[in-house]
């Protein structure tokens, strides 16, 4: 169906560039994020389910048995409110639910409890790191549907039969709808990433796209540059990663441009993103608005949200990613560079670790950051260490602060610190203040600073390499590095490099 971009990546890119010169993409994003409550939205079933055991977390309520009634989970309102506040939304004074009626086997009651006329949050905005301001139309809570497993096909079409797993039915979701404010695939992906970060920062959702706890639908239209107003938009579903978001938008932009160029119209339709073929495929054409016969949910009375409650929730909000980034880069404060800042603030766990090391344990910020960005990240991404997740490292913020301090004080060399690191990350059991130093001492790894000891080492190296000493004295001064390295090696990396340097120069130039 999709007349895919064909050819190599480069060709595609230049084609996109050509299209972008003439057309402006207009992109809006709709996100469904699973809220991190322990139980489902309207019953007592656990929301932590095992995807391999279908229909384990179900009860008469979430399977819509006759006579059952939904009982709203207060935690859902709290989490969604926090997300809405973080997105600068106006919070409703009253939580109201509506029914959205449609027949489909993944919807046990054949209606979904959602919020239509009075969303929990409205009129917010999200400022992207790149500077684009994206308006948030609304944030509302709703319940997830069951999962359909189609046998013999990927979709209902063509399958022999379909199974329904109700574990997911009734899981609370926040639906976050943006205005069509983004102007490229890259911006749409950036919006997704920033939103994910915010949801994680406020603890509303784990935003895990691979596991489906954050799902994105994108609305794409294009218009000739300079044209006001919007042309028919195409909704693209099944976009399961931020990379795909960018690819799907770019694909649609080119596809729609070709259609317009060929004098065709772009229909308002729903398409599916095919990750393998890197193409969007037609799912259904929208014939006018579906009539969902929305009406106020009579089984759940409106719940007043006292401003004191809202205030209390607001007070618990973490510093948001944008504010954190600004603080980290503040020249009068931490004064970190943009790249380091991005690394530290992308994952709240890393940011918290960094802040604890600096604020509670007095670590030098730049040095602590350097370790986190460099060796610690390298260890987690490499294949030598055992621990792969930041959350699971054994090193504590206090431990990092001490390590940085020991290097700064000249108590250990940077080389020794690097050698100790894997152990500190994978299996360290210290924790008390001074534990790193104790470990260093127990292993006999303290730095050697005594000039007499180092001078002896220098002498030993010089004596072992008489020809090279001659060469040096005859003008091959580049050999200094060789001698310094040999001395350091001789010391087991423990000798203070500056002392080694000066004593080696002294010895080579003297006697």
């Amino acid at each position, binding site marked *: 169906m999709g007349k895919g971009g064909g050819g190599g990546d480069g060709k595609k890119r230049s084609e996109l560039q050509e299209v972008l010169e003439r057309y402006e993409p207009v992109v809006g994003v709709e996100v469904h994020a699973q809220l991190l409550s322990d139980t489902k939205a309207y019953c007592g079933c656990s929301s932590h389910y095992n995807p391999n055991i279908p229909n384990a977390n179900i009860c008469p309520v979430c399977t819509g048995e006759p*006579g059952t*009634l939904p009982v709203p989970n207060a935690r859902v309102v709290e989490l969604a409110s926090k997300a809405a506040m973080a997105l600068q939304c106006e919070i409703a004074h009253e939580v109201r639910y509506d029914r959205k009626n449609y*027949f*489909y*086997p993944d919807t046990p009651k054949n209606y979904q409890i959602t919020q239509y006329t009075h969303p929990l949050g409205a009129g917010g905005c999200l400022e992207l790191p790149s500077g684009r301001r994206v308006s948030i139309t609304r944030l509302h809570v709703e319940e997830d549907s069951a999962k359909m497993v189609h046998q013999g096909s990927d979709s209902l079409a*063509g399958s*022999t039969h379909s199974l329904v797993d109700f574990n997911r039915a009734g899981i609370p979701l926040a639906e976050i709808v943006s205005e069509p404010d983004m102007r490229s695939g890259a911006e749409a992906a950036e919006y997704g990433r920033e939103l994910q970060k915010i949801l994680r920062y406020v603890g509303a959702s784990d935003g895990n796209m691979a596991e489906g706890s954050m799902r994105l639908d994108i609305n794409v239209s294009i218009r000739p540059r300079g044209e006001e107003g919007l042309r028919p938009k195409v909704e693209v579903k099944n976009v399961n990663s931020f990379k795909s978001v960018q690819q799907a938008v770019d694909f649609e932009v080119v596809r729609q441009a070709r259609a317009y160029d060929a004098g065709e119209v772009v229909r308002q339709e729903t398409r599916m993103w095919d990750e393998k073929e890197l193409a969007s495929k037609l799912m*259904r054409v929208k014939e006018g608005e579906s009539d969902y*016969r*929305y009406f106020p949910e009579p089984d759940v009375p409106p719940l007043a949200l006292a401003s004191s409650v809202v205030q209390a929730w607001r007070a618990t909000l973490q510093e948001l990613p944008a504010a954190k980034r600004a603080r980290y880069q503040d020249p009068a404060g931490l004064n970190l560079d943009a790249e380091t800042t991005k690394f530290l603030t992308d994952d709240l766990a890393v940011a918290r670790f960094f802040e604890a090391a600096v604020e509670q344990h007095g670590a030098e910020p730049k040095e602590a950051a350097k370790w986190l960005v460099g060796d610690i990240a390298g260890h987690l991404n490499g294949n030598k260490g055992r621990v792969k997740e930041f959350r699971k490292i054994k090193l504590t913020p206090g431990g990092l602060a001490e390590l940085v301090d020991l290097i700064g004080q000249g108590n250990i060399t940077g080389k020794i610190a690097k050698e100790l690191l894997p152990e500190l990350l994978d299996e360290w059991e210290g924790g008390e203040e001074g534990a790193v130093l104790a470990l260093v001492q127990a292993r006999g790894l303290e730095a050697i600073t005594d000039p007499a000891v180092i001078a002896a080492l220098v002498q030993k190296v010089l004596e072992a390499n008489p020809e090279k000493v001659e060469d040096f004295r005859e003008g091959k001064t580049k050999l200094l590095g060789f001698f310094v390295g040999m001395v350091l090696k001789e010391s087991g990396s423990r000798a203070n490099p500056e002392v080694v340097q000066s004593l080696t120069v002294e010895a080579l130039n003297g006697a």
Partner: protein
Amino acid sequence: MQRCLSRQQETSGLNSFVTVLRHAAEKEAAVAGRHRVMKGPLHGIPIAVKDNFCTAGVRTTASSRMLANFVPPYSATAVSRLEASGAIVVGKTNMDEFGMGSATLFSHFGKTINPWSQAAEEGDKPRLAAGGSSGGSAVAVATGSALAALGSDTGGSVRQPAAFCGLVGLKPTYGRVSRHGLIAYASSLDCPGVLTRTVADAALVLDVVAGRDPLDSTCLEQPHRPCFDRTMEAAASSRAAGLAVSLRGLKVGIPAEFAIQELEGSAVTAWEEGARLLRDAGADVLPVSVPSIPLALPTYFVIACAEASSNLARYDGIRFGYRASRSLRASRSKEGIGSANTEEDDQRALHDFITASRSQGFGDEVQRRVISGCRVLSAQAYATYYEKALAARLRLRREMNTALSHVDVLLTPVTPTGPFPLTTPAEPAALMVNDVMTVPASLAGLPAIAVPVDLAPSSFVPGLPVPVGLQLIGRHLCEQQLLIVARALEVRCNFSERIPDYVVKATFT
């Protein structure tokens, strides 16, 4: 218990039960008899339960083909509370399918017959309707097959059959009794209610089932103030004691708008007589006005159908309930598995299947209301019908509450006419008029009670005496006061002494 069970057998021709729990009831009665300690105030009392209350392990049909084989995995809160207080459920009673009707005519399990039409049995005189939708519950109590029955009242479904069968029918404040486990018809109106022979019995049963329930978020938080208290106990202890209770200081309002054209002469007489009796008891009786009453019926119809269309959507033949014989797989493979059938083709096949199941599983009246409900909620009709109905409901509620700020209770007829013959063609609009007196309290969520006050010759079957009831509507959550006034009316009418023997004794076979 044995008397109830044999009455049930003797009157089986009236078709008041969908499911009889004879053996279970006998066994439980035997156990209850052996127990020295009372489980609760209803220890050993045989109770009938309308078949739209879920009963764990016992088929619950809502009198629909759709649920003819549905066995719920849990019990309704009202049922659990009855059982916990020692009551024994003797059976599940017939009703209009999903509560939609006023005569227990529209049941997959057949019509229910009013025991008051006994005398009409000879010859070809028509049999009378028991009222509905809780007709089976009413007949169960009227015949003595149970001492009390659980019903549900959406627009009068407890009060109207109570009036038709000469019983007390109590619809408490909306949210006073949990709806958990009550198969929904119209969520914002559905109200579990009680049918009994006396006001005191109704108070007793209400006290057992009322009160907050975490499983129903529309159930009210306020603690229930017991109604079967010392006053009620004293007033019910003897006729003399009952007559001694004075209503001095109490104000009774007579809303003029209830005096509609369709009101029968006997109903007018009973209404005037009721007002006189309450005045005799010491109450001030004064006229009040609720101007929106003429809008109540259409408002009710729009809201009830709208909610029903959504509540009944879950019966699609896929997970439970009736399933059309033409299988989904068959309709899908018709297109050819793996062939080029698109998402749309399969959607259509799925919808054909759901439509078939629903067309076959639901009766005509249910389909009519579901379709009406879908219509009023559709984008084109929402503003003209549904939104207007919500506004009218709000206005009516305000007016009723205003009237009730001037008086303590309202006194009105229950129905415009007495029980009509079952042979009357089931003309939906005509049947709907039966609810005209009862829907205002439903829309306003106020407690209301039907009390049998008199006998009058039937206007449908010449010479046949039929019961006439009056309705009292109370203030929000003021069931206690409502029941005291009801008892005062009851004791002065002395209706129970006037029930002919054949109603409770003769049998249909």
